[in-house]
């Protein structure tokens, strides 16, 4: 019992130190994992359930949005996502792909529409800097429900692998790529994929509308 109390003391002290150091206004700052439990005040906070085995959010790579902010994929968790990969200087397929996403969004029942996040991830990690992505957002008139992301080539490749998106850069710097819209549920699992351009989006819309809320 004494040992246990001592351990609790140590852990909360260490936890407090860690919280101070990391300047995160939370008492849940990492306590030494070896001790096996967190500071007592953490219990009240609802701990996030572990990600499912099929959740894309298991990718722990770091991403940057068009505002220049750093984003982890887990921040998308909790609401359905429509995700597609593109590059901003694409002249043909990508504007059509974005338009397909808009059509899909418009085909959703109104109460579902407000809950859905639309995500565009660029292949072009070199040219699609946050300002370039921001310019694309403006040019395509994308609302606040849209998230535009870039990362390292390696992270982009891993995400493409998980989505089943094939892409290849040609000698002129253009990308040949799959035209694929993926529906993720709130947990980040793939529930539907819509391939091709200018197709019928009603099936995908139905899938999104039927996702549990």
């Amino acid at each position, binding site marked *: 019992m004494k040992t246990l109390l001592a351990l609790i003391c140590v852990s909360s002290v260490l936890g407090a130190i860690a919280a101070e150091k990391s300047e995160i206004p939370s008492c849940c700052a990492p306590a030494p994992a070896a001790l096996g439990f967190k500071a007592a005040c953490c219990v009240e906070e609802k701990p996030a359930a572990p990600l499912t*085995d099929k959740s894309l959010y298991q990718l722990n790579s770091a991403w940057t949005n068009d505002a220049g902010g750093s984003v982890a994929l887990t921040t998308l968790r909790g609401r359905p996502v429509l995700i597609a990969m593109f590059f901003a200087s694409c002249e043909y397929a990508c504007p059509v792909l974005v338009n397909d996403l808009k059509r899909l969004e418009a085909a959703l029942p109104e109460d579902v529409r407000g809950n859905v996040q639309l995500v565009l991830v660029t292949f072009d990690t070199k040219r699609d800097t946050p300002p370039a992505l921001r310019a694309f957002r403006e040019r395509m008139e994308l609302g606040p429900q849209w998230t535009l992301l870039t990362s390292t080539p390696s992270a982009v*490749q*891993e995400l493409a*692998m*998980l989505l089943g998106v094939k*892409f290849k850069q040609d000698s*002129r710097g253009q990308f040949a790529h*799959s*035209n694929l819209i993926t529906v993720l549920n709130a947990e980040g699992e793939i529930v539907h994929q819509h*391939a091709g351009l200018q197709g019928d989006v009603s099936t995908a819309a139905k899938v999104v509308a039927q996702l549990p809320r």
Partner: protein
Amino acid sequence: MAPTLLRSSSLRSFRRMLAAAVVWGGLLVFTSARSEVAAPVGMTFIPAGTYEPQLRSKDEPDKVPVEAFWLDARPVTNAEFLEFVRTHPQWQRSKVSALFADRGYLADWAGDLELGEAASAAAPVVRVSWFAARAFAQAEGKRLPTTAEWERAAAAGFTQPDGASEAGFSAYVLSWLSRPGIARLPAAGSGRPNVFGARDLHGLVWEWVDDFNTAMTTGESRADTGLERNLFCGAGAAGARNLTDYPAFMRAGLRSSVRANYCVPNLGFRCAQDLAPASENSP
């Protein structure tokens, strides 16, 4: 080197020792002129060259330049992969996420940390996903070779840098494809080295490449429309460079049919590494 030489040859004539030293010295100068930096352990130097894609779109060049790089001299073995999963438990069979490896993952092993009968220690590891292969490479401070790099290395014959012009080489490569798969794979590295010193690029297992998903043909011609039609106006085969290079076709076909979490019997991998900045002046 000198003291050993002295001891071993002190019983023989001083002249012979001197001759040996001269030969050794000459050899040292010769090798250091060839590459200033020693190869990383188990890796072999693949000089800069070109890769001729088997399938390409009309905008792609016939030849893609490939910079010099280090390549594992043989595929990664079960024993090496076992060591990796020991130190990286998230890659053990019972713990791996379905997202990163399908149910075939290391299925021929006896357990999480046990190889068993079907998977000998020296045999190449197979039934690993692209994600797993990549994680292994990263843990080693290496990476997977690109398609261009792998094909560049594999195009070399046993005696000629260009295997296609070496008598019997193409037939050798083809003969593997005509043999039925064998239940128990032999040791990795037991094949004859090619002119760059890389073994078993042909004849043992298929190998993952880092950018396998750039192979644009798909099994279903209806899926991903727009993509294939844009890339390959007409049929994919019409873009083929060399219709007689059947093995290259097979590899391209395999790459376009797998996904990154697939774990396939006979699909293993080896690692590559960039040349260190200091050795960039190597031949």
